[in-house]
C-alpha cells in the first residue's frame, strides 16, 4: 500500500465533496489501519481493478449519512430507504471514479466496481493481505473516513 495511491482519493474527495456538499472539507491526519478495524456505522465500499486493485471504503456515522443524503436529495430523509442509500453510494462512486481518473493520469489505469453499502454498529472489517491507510475528512455534515486498501496488480 503506497501513499501515492491515497493522494488521488483525497484530491477527488475534495473536488466531489465541495461540489456535492457545497463546501470544502478539512483533511485530518493520515494513519495506518490495524489489520482488523471497527468501521463507521455507514460504509460505502467501492472496488478498484486494473493496474492497482483493492477496495476503498467511505465511512461515516448514521447521522452524517442521513444529513448528506438529505442534502443530496433536497429533502429531509426520515427513513434511510433505497433512495437515501443510493445517494450515499453514488457519493462514494463519484469519488472513486474521479480518483480512478487521477490514478490513470499517474500511470495506473484502472476501473471501478459498483458500490455496496454496509450499515451497522461495531462492524468489524479487514482488508486481509492489503494494508489500509485511512484519512478523515471533516465536512459540515460530519466526518467521512476514507480507507484506501490498494496494491499494484
Amino acid at each position: 500500500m503506497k501513499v501515492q495511491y491515497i493522494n488521488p482519493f483525497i484530491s477527488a474527495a475534495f473536488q466531489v465533496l465541495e461540489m456535492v456538499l457545497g463546501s470544502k472539507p478539512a483533511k485530518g491526519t493520515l494513519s495506518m489501519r490495524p489489520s482488523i478495524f471497527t468501521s463507521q456505522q455507514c460504509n460505502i465500499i467501492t472496488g478498484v481493478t486494473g493496474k492497482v486493485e483493492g477496495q476503498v471504503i467511505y465511512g461515516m456515522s448514521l447521522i452524517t449519512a442521513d444529513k448528506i443524503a438529505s442534502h443530496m436529495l433536497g429533502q429531509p430523509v426520515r427513513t434511510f430507504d433505497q433512495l437515501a442509500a443510493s445517494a450515499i453510494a453514488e457519493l462514494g462512486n463519484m469519488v472513486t471514479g474521479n480518483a480512478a481518473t487521477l490514478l490513470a493520469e499517474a500511470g495506473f489505469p484502472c476501473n471501478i466496481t459498483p458500490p455496496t453499502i454496509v450499515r451497522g454498529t461495531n462492524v468489524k472489517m479487514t482488508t486481509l493481505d492489503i494494508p489500509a491507510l485511512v484519512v478523515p475528512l471533516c465536512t459540515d455534515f460530519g466526518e467521512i473516513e476514507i480507507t484506501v486498501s490498494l496494491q499494484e496488480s
Partner: protein
Amino acid sequence: MAKKILIADDALFMRVTLKNILEKNGYQVVGEASNGLESLELYQKTKPDLVTMDITMPEMDGITAVRELKKIDPQANIIMCTAMGQKQMVLEAVSAGAKDFIVKPFQPDKVLEAVQKIIGA
C-alpha cells in the same frame, strides 16, 4: 411533442436526479434502465430520441451497451454520464458511438446543454 429520453444508470439516486432535471426542462423520460442489458430492451420498447448512459453498471457496462445499441440503431443518440472520466474511457465511448461525455458530479446546466446540442429543446 416532448423529446423522449431513456436513462441508464445503476444508481436510483442518479436516475431520479436526471429525471428531475430533464422533466423540469420539458423532456419526457420514457424509461429508466438499471444496467446496460436493460437499456437495450427498453430502447427497443420506448424508441427514445436520446439515451443517457452510465459506464459502471452490473450485467452489462455502458460502453458495451453503446456498441450493442448502435447495432440495433446506428442513429441512436447516446450521451455518457459517468464518474469515470479518464481519456481512455472517453475514447472508447466515443469510438463505440457516444456523442458526448459528461463526468459526475455535474451541474444540471451541463446535462441540459449536452442534450439540447444533440436533440434540441
